[in-house]
């Protein structure tokens, strides 16, 4: 049992590291299709984590949410995004990132920062979830950073979803998931959100025939005469 727990702990930590790593790669990634694939990978990792926790803590409702996650974030949404990309002929678009190196360094410092912030938190938690919260907080912030640094609407969606992933991850690992109702609600919201995103792509497309959010800047308060 002892070894098992430690094994479990190591496994969780490994998965956490992987999740974190994926979001790092996403951050530096400039090709949209690859971005979506990475996102899918993250989803799968997430599902795996959930399943693991579910088995170890043998809490049945986590199984459900694991499958949900796999279905939604591992398969459905990535497919949807791919479909959109093909529909809009974006598979060749390069959403290149200015100064990727600085960006990654900033990301790294973010991770450090979130460790620093969450230090007192993890101390009172049990062994396994140590540093999980820090990692997920970092992933959350990285998701935001992704949105800030990328200009394609698709990338924004991915960043948004990545944030959701981070949240979900932390929920699963630190507290063995939220109550089922909440889980369902969250999942529902995510799905609706994905659909609405799809709708928006078309709307944006027909308003400014591209998905570059930098060109969505009609509603500014800076007059030209200033």
């Amino acid at each position: 049992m002892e070894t098992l727990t430690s094994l479990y702990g190591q496994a969780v930590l490994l998965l956490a590291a992987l999740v974190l790593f994926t979001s790092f790669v996403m951050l530096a990634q400039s090709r949209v299709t690859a971005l979506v694939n990475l996102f899918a990978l993250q989803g799968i990792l997430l599902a795996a984590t959930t399943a693991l926790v579910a088995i170890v803590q043998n809490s049945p409702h986590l199984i459900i949410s694991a499958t949900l996650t796999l279905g939604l974030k591992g398969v459905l949404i990535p497919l949807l995004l791919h479909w959109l990309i093909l529909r809009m002929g974006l598979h060749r678009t390069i959403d290149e990132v200015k100064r990727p190196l600085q960006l990654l360094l900033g990301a790294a410092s973010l991770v450090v920062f979130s460790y620093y912030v969450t230090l007192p938190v993890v101390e009172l938690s049990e062994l396994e979830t140590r540093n999980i919260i820090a990692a997920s907080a970092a992933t959350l912030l990285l998701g935001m950073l992704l949105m800030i640094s990328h200009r394609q609407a698709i990338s924004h969606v991915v960043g948004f979803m990545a944030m959701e992933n981070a949240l979900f991850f932390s929920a699963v690992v630190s507290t063995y998931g939220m109550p089922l109702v909440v889980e369902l609600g969250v999942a529902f919201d995510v799905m609706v959100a994905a659909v609405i995103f799809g709708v928006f792509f078309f709307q944006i497309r027909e308003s400014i025939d591209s998905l570059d959010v930098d060109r969505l800047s009609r509603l500014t308060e800076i007059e030209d005469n200033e």
Partner: protein
Amino acid sequence: MIRNLVATTIRQTRLKARQGLSFASGELKSHPQVLIALTAGLVLVSAYWGIEGKDAALPFSLLAVAFSLASGFLGLGADRHPRLLRHASFLLLGLSGIAGLLGGGTALIGRAAVDLSLPLGLPWLDWNLHIDALSGFFLCVISVVLLAVSVFGPHYVREYEHGTHPLSLLALATGLFIAGMQLVLLAADAFFFMIAWELMSVASYFLVAYTHEHAANRHAAFIYLLMAEIGALFIILAYGVLVGFGDGFTFAAMKQATLTPLWASVAFVLALIGFGMKAGIVPLHAWLPEAHPVAPSHISALMSGVMLKIAVYGFIRFTFDLLGDLLWQWGVVVLVLGAASAVLGVLYALMQHNLKRLLAYHSVENIGIIFMGLGLAILFYSDGHPTLGAIGLIAALCHTLNHAIFKSLLFLGAGVILQRSHESDIERMGGLIHRMPVTAVLFLIGCISISALPPFNGFVSEWLTYQAALQVSALDSGVLRSFVPVTAAMLALSGGLAAACFVKVFGVVFLGKPRSHHAQHTRRLESSAAIAGMGWLAGLCLLLGVLPTPLVRLLEGLTVQLTGSGLPETASRGWMWLAPVSADTASYAALGVMLAMGLAWMLSYEWLHPGHEHPEREAYPWDCGFGALTPRMEYTASAFAMPFRRIFADSFVVHEEIEKQSADADGLKVTGIRYRLHVSDLLWRWFYEPVERWLRWSVRHIGRLQTGNIRVYLGYSFFTLIFLLWVIS
């Protein structure tokens, strides 16, 4: 020939006066039911008075409020039935005036102190009402002017009946405005006070914006409302200090508050700014000359004559009643501000050509004089000479009433002039004394009073102010002893300038030859209603000028109730001699002066007047033989004011330009000269424009936040998060 000319004028005056007095009854005769109701009401009222005694003060005052509200809401129907406004609405205002006079008078004479609380407002705080001699006195001030307006108004508003503006708005706003002022006086807790205060401001704002099709008027209304709001905020904060240190919103609780000198001074400064902004002391007066001329004239009379006094009331109530123990530094501040307002106000007034604007600037001057009195009072009280402080307070209150009377008189007169001559620029008037002789007489009385000349009322209050200032030898600090007379000399300067200014006004408007087509063809008609309204005020000017002593006695009672001390024992309390300190120190028997002057006049008239063997001959004006006298040769108002403009050049922003059209190239043969002069308020440049520039600057720079790029927005959120996380850990 003089005899009959003078005689006709006098006769006409007498006639008009009689008509005016009979006017009200005439109005009533046409509506007997109103007359009956009125008499019945009066009978009931007097019966009630007999029973209740001085406790009747509050009921009467509430009755006054009710009447003014009623007149406002009754006037809502005025769009369909203009007569409703002309008769019912103004009649109710008159009733409100009478009730207010009864209530205020009762409170003032009986030194009543009656409380009442209405179950409105906040759950833990009712609307507290309270009336005492102070509020009673100011209630009287309102009512005196209100009576005049209610008689003057019905005829005056006829011109609006054909205009595009809704009469209902005029009636409603007027009613609410007056009710607001009356409620301010009755309020006894900060919350209700502010409600009444703002009601007053907003209602008068609608009156200022009444003729809103001119951009200038809209701007005036905007400035007015803006500054009213800012002032109100300051007042709220001032009360906030007292609430913070005391335990509750009621004035009673605030009096108990014990403040450190620092916080007391903070509260005082806040209150001074707040109330000063409403009263229009320099440099917070910017709204006043904009707003007052824009409103209909009977409203200008109320605003200039009464509303500013409400601000004075607020200041007195806050400083002398709520704060209690005073500091001498406050007195110095108030005194300096008052002196500055007095001098600058009249200087700017001298430069104005728009009649009502000029009068508005004179309000600034007179408010300055009132505040000088208050400043002296604070000095003496803080220095431990309450009896001398009472003189200053009485002088200030006295001038409050007097200014209310003659300033309303002048504004009503201005209203008549504007309405008849269709001119607002005095440069285009002239010779009106032949067209409207009686108005001229009444307006002249106003001019003499405001120029502080004996034997009219303006002089009495300024005399009292001087007397207060001359008691400086009682003060401990030599600095103050030498400083106060200097301010007194500034008061003298403002008096002299005011006299000059009103010589200009009366001379240019009424005397000389008509300067424009309109002035030439001004209708001779003088409505007896207008005459009655102004006559009542003019009569008061003379009465209070000749018999000031009863008023001073009442005011002494007021100060006793307010600060616990009246005039020195040695002061004469007879009915004729006005001697605030002692008969040896200073005495002024206005009645005696009046009689003696009359006597001297009679004698000189009888003895030195040539008999019929030496008749007078009408001849063409000599004018040093210049020949044909045309209006263009007359001395214009700006020419009259030119020496002052030259001498006090530093206190104005003067734009003066002269263009010469010349027939030939080298400009030697000048065919025409065009002279353009624009004098503006220096304080705009000093105080208001910098603020505006700062605002523009910061608005432009803060606006940069909204870049329109979503990634920047995300950045905001991101960094806020980081920052906060860093803050907490």
